[in-house]
């Protein structure tokens, strides 16, 4: 009886000694599927700031109806200004045409997006390295896609109706 009890205790200890949270340098965590990068901020943060989300679109939205076709369905938030922030967006494998930080003004967004132009702004997006005037396409494989860096510029945020004609 004594030996099995001792063995059980040793097994328990050895199992418990293994693992747990450890200090992890900022970056895409291992086993993560999606994109990671650093957001750098410019300009003064508007007082009416509610929250800033990071999302990805498989195809660039061409109308209000496409506005909420982003991934992931529960978008991660990033700080409103401050030091450069290492963000990550969990995404399924695929091709994404627009990785964007969405600034939201204080207020309630209608579920149908009818007041999206009032409350939402494109605060910054990942740009094509060869032509920085265009969004950069990101391909997510079965692991992390790193260095998708971009700038959030509070002084030059774009209205929804600048991206496509609003009704």
């Amino acid at each position, binding site marked *: 009886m004594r030996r099995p009890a001792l063995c059980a205790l040793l097994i328990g200890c050895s199992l418990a000694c293994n693992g*747990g949270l450890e200090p992890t340098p900022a970056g895409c965590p291992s086993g993560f599927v999606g994109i990671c990068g650093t957001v750098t901020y410019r300009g003064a943060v508007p007082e009416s700031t509610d929250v800033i989300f990071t999302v990805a679109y498989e195809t660039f939205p061409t109308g209000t109806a496409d506005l*909420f076709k982003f991934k992931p369905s529960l978008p*991660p*938030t990033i700080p409103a200004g401050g030091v450069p922030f290492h963000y990550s967006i*969990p995404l399924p494998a695929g091709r994404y045409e627009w990785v964007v930080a969405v600034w939201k003004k204080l207020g309630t967004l209608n579920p149908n997006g009818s007041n999206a132009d009032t409350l939402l702004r494109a605060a910054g997006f990942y740009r094509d390295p060869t032509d920085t005037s265009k969004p950069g396409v990101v391909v997510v494989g079965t692991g992390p896609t790193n260095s998708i860096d971009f700038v959030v510029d509070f002084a030059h945020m774009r209205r929804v109706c600048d991206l496509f004609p609003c009704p």
Partner: protein
Amino acid sequence: MLVPSLAAAQAPTGVRGTVRDSVTGAPIVDAEVTAGDSGGWVAHTNGKGAYELRQVATGTVVIHVRRLGYQSATRTVALTPGDTVRLDVVLVPVSLELAPVIVTAAKRSQLLDQAVTSVALVTPTDIARRGVTRVDEVVDKAPGVQFLGGQVNIRGSSGFQVGIGSRVLLLVDGVPAIQGDRGGIDWDLMPLDAIDHVEIVKGAGSSLYGSAALGGVVNLLTPEVATGFHMRVRATGGGFANPPDTLWRFRDYTGGEELIAVNGSYGTDALRASVTVVGHHTDGYREQDRGDTWQVAGKGEWLASSSTHVRATGSWARHEYEVPVVWCEYGGCDDRGLAYQPFKIDTAQSLGAYTTSSKSLFAATVDHVASPRLSWMARGSWLRTDFTDIRLPAGESSLADRYGVELRGVARSDHDRVSTVGGEVARSEISGDAFGNHTMTELGGYGEGEQRLGGTRLTAGARVDYVQRDGGGGTAVVSPRIGLVIPGGITWRASAGRAFRAPSFAELYPTSCLPGGLCTQANPLLDPETAWSFELGTATAPVRGTRIDAALFWTEAEHFIEPAVSGNGLEIQFQNLERARIAGLDLSASGAAWSNRLTASLSYTFLYARELAHDTVPERPLAFRPRHLLTLAADYALGPLSVGADFRYMSHYERVELYSPAIPLLSPKVLDLRATVTRGAFEARFVVANALNYLYNLVPQTLVPVRTATLSLVWSY
């Protein structure tokens, strides 16, 4: 070896006498006296310890005398036709390992092995050994039970719902104690020092308890107040381990906690009362984690007669605590270049957050035994919860009162049949800016009968509930249950029952925003969630001092209420899931050896929890349910010293929500160590919880307690 031709003997013949205690000489009431090997003639002693067996067959007859708590006696008498023989018997009292008596599974007293569903017990010994400070720490150690962010989860019934909408009903001495506004549980409502033991009924319990008893029932039972004067003082002090890495350090001192608990009672034959007062302070193990708790609990009993028992209980608690809310990730604090800082708060979301929370429960109960065949109980209760959350950018508060009355009767029509019938009314009134001003009225009527067929016990019953909100249209729900227990060397039990939970106001009308800007959206159209639960269980004691209990369970749930992201991705709303399935195995084994000096237990739960496919959503795991949960415990006592350990393993979640991708999904392995020294009226307990300082989180961005060493000194009078 006995009874020659009993069947053939026909002449009226008898045996009579008394049964007495060998030590005190007192008559023993309700001792069973049987004649013949097959127990063909049976009598029970009356209040004077007397019995009489009539029309016993002639010849040499063996008489057996049995009574719980005494060594059985066997005598042989020679009977001639027409004779009545006097046989006085004395029984020797013995210490017996009695089958535990439970009161929760059927809303009446029964033996543990007579329950149709699985019941786990946390005994006074378990509570004392673990040396913990809060009630939830005790319940968390029970087989098949798990806590997630203060929310109890039995057999995977609950995921993580920020503490609201509990699918487990909390009772205090049988009185419901579910918050009127949030539908959750305040685990600090009762001081641990006022609790005697805990009964945990697993599986659907709505056929007797109505809403919230969907996944199980936890009943905190206070001790009967003893006669004479008694007192107990417990003083506890301890400290939390500092973060193991300097990059995680957040303060330049070691955090500690202190607790003082005083319990006193005085009782006469007719009147008894007890009071417990507790004060607790903690520095916490994280940044912004300090808290103070004050608890008072009292109990008064009036034994008006041998058949009438009046009991009044009350408890009040106030908890003021800083709230870390969530730990910070890169950029959210002084991150020191790390992806996350589990000991530090997110300064943008958590800075300055704190909560004040008061709660009280008062109940009065009258128990009356009208006759050996009929007893009834009446009770009234009032639960008040009041909280104020201070958060950025604004706080919120809510006050909830829940009033309840219940009337219940238990009829034993003969030795083979027991019927329980009752009715319950509850009304909740809430106000405040957290969930608005609302009322809810719940009416419930229930009945359950147990019929013995030979040794087999068949149980069937149902409860009808009617829930009405804000004076509008109501919802009626029927919750039937059937069960079967087949006793023997191996006891088998099977049950099938339907359960439900009405949505709480916090799920219907949330108005708050979570940290990070995600706001909750009201959903007044939520339906009650319902579930059919099935269980097949078995229990056996292969060797004296051991017990093995295993159960297969299967739950088919409809309209489970779970948080979901709304269409625009910017709000969280509680919605009804189409269907969910939770199945698994619950196994527990316990044993003792070396004259009970060594005790050990093992419990294992396997879970298969799935949200079934609907619309465009494929079948997927239910969030925040582990597939494997294993607990091992062992204690060894040698004279005044005892040492023990608990080990718990939980496999990582198959699916999580609101979970940062930077955080690895872990399989926690936690070891607790303890030692106790007893000397006369004094006892010292040393406990090291999470001894190996395994750092992990169960809910998003919330670190569970690190290694904590505490020393408790207990004095009893």
